[in-house]
């Protein structure tokens, strides 16, 4: 397999900054607004999320290319992918509880949330659609994870400060979070054109 490092690097940058899942593709918003209230949970979620994302992207890539494509059942991809993600999350939950209970008590609660995250499903769907090879899929998964982590951490640091701000009553809570996200998204449009893929 010949590796094209420039392409991999571009893929990571593109998926984390230019096509950031939260700000330009609007995925994973439920979790994004749910866990961005505190810095600590945001960091925990980011770590768990990136790890699960890369593992599931890798497993799904193998199953898609070596089982589903030869059997010509790619039209079942939604059902199969969500099954794999749910199974994988359940498995990592059990394994973590047995092997690393300390880590489990810190990060375990985020695992259950992850299975309902659309990004974790969108990455394999996109990489199947774009016909990425194995290494490219991993790079895409890593970039998307970094992008999500970046979004969560930026948002959490703003929302911690926002607790003290005097916001008009109807805007309190989620509406204000949306407006802020809109402003960050506006800033992120500045990255477009950084790399043309």
């Amino acid at each position: 397999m010949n590796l094209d490092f420039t392409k991999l690097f571009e893929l990571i940058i593109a998926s984390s900054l230019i096509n950031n899942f939260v700000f330009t593709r609007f995925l994973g918003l439920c979790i994004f607004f749910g866990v961005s209230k505190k810095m600590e949970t945001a960091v925990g979620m980011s770590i768990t999320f990136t790890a699960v994302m890369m593992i599931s992207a890798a497993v799904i890539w193998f199953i898609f290319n070596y089982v589903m494509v030869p059997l010509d059942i790619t039209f079942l991809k939604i059902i199969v992918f969500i099954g794999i993600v749910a199974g994988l999350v359940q498995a990592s939950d059990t394994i973590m509880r047995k092997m690393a209970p300390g880590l489990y008590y810190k990060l375990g609660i985020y695992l259950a949330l992850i299975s309902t995250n659309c990004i974790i499903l969108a990455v394999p769907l996109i990489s199947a659609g774009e016909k990425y090879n194995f290494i490219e899929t991993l790079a895409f998964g890593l970039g998307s994870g970094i992008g999500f982590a970046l979004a969560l951490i930026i948002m959490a640091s703003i929302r911690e400060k926002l607790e003290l701000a005097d916001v008009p009553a109807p805007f309190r809570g989620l509406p204000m979070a949306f407006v802020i996200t809109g402003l960050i998204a506006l800033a992120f449009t500045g990255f477009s054109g950084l790399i043309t893929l």
Partner: protein
Amino acid sequence: MAQHSAINYKELILNGIVKENTIFKLALSLCPAIAVTSGLKNGVLMGFAVLFVQVMVNSTISLMRKFIHPRIRLPIFMLVISGWVTVTDMSMAAAFPDVYKQMGLYIQLIVAFASILARAEMFASKNKIAPSMADGIGMGIGFLFALTVISFFREILGKGALWGFPIINAKPLLIMILPAGGFLAVGILMAFFNWIDAKYLKGRSSHH
């Protein structure tokens, strides 16, 4: 039970549209609310896709509720949902190829909607088929309504057009069709509905 005849269908449907509106009140399934609402046509089609999936999932789960073992209910729900999403996905791809090209990914991601799973778990798995369908229709219409409102404002402000036809002859606000505008529109509309809620419906809404 005699109580079953007392189920108020109008109330059930209204509950999904007003009191528990998926987007403005529960803040669930937000991804498509922003992703596909840069034009009215896409927003309405997405709304109908979700309405269809929600009603079909609710009815299927309600019919199967006696045969599903509680311990494996979540995987079964996911299977039913992804089955109906696949049906919707393929029908949309065949019927509206030009729209599907822009929002195909989001149709496939209906499968990860928290709101659909939540209604299956909280309502359809405990109720008969008719109330479950009414609940699905209410939740679906609530979602359709939210998407229609958001995409109406975004298209008319961002492109000066509705359903692709130009109606305002002025320089449009480009920001409204950019990703950032979607977040701003949802945030402002959410605040608007909160304001109405606080001002006119005080005491009537049990939510919050």
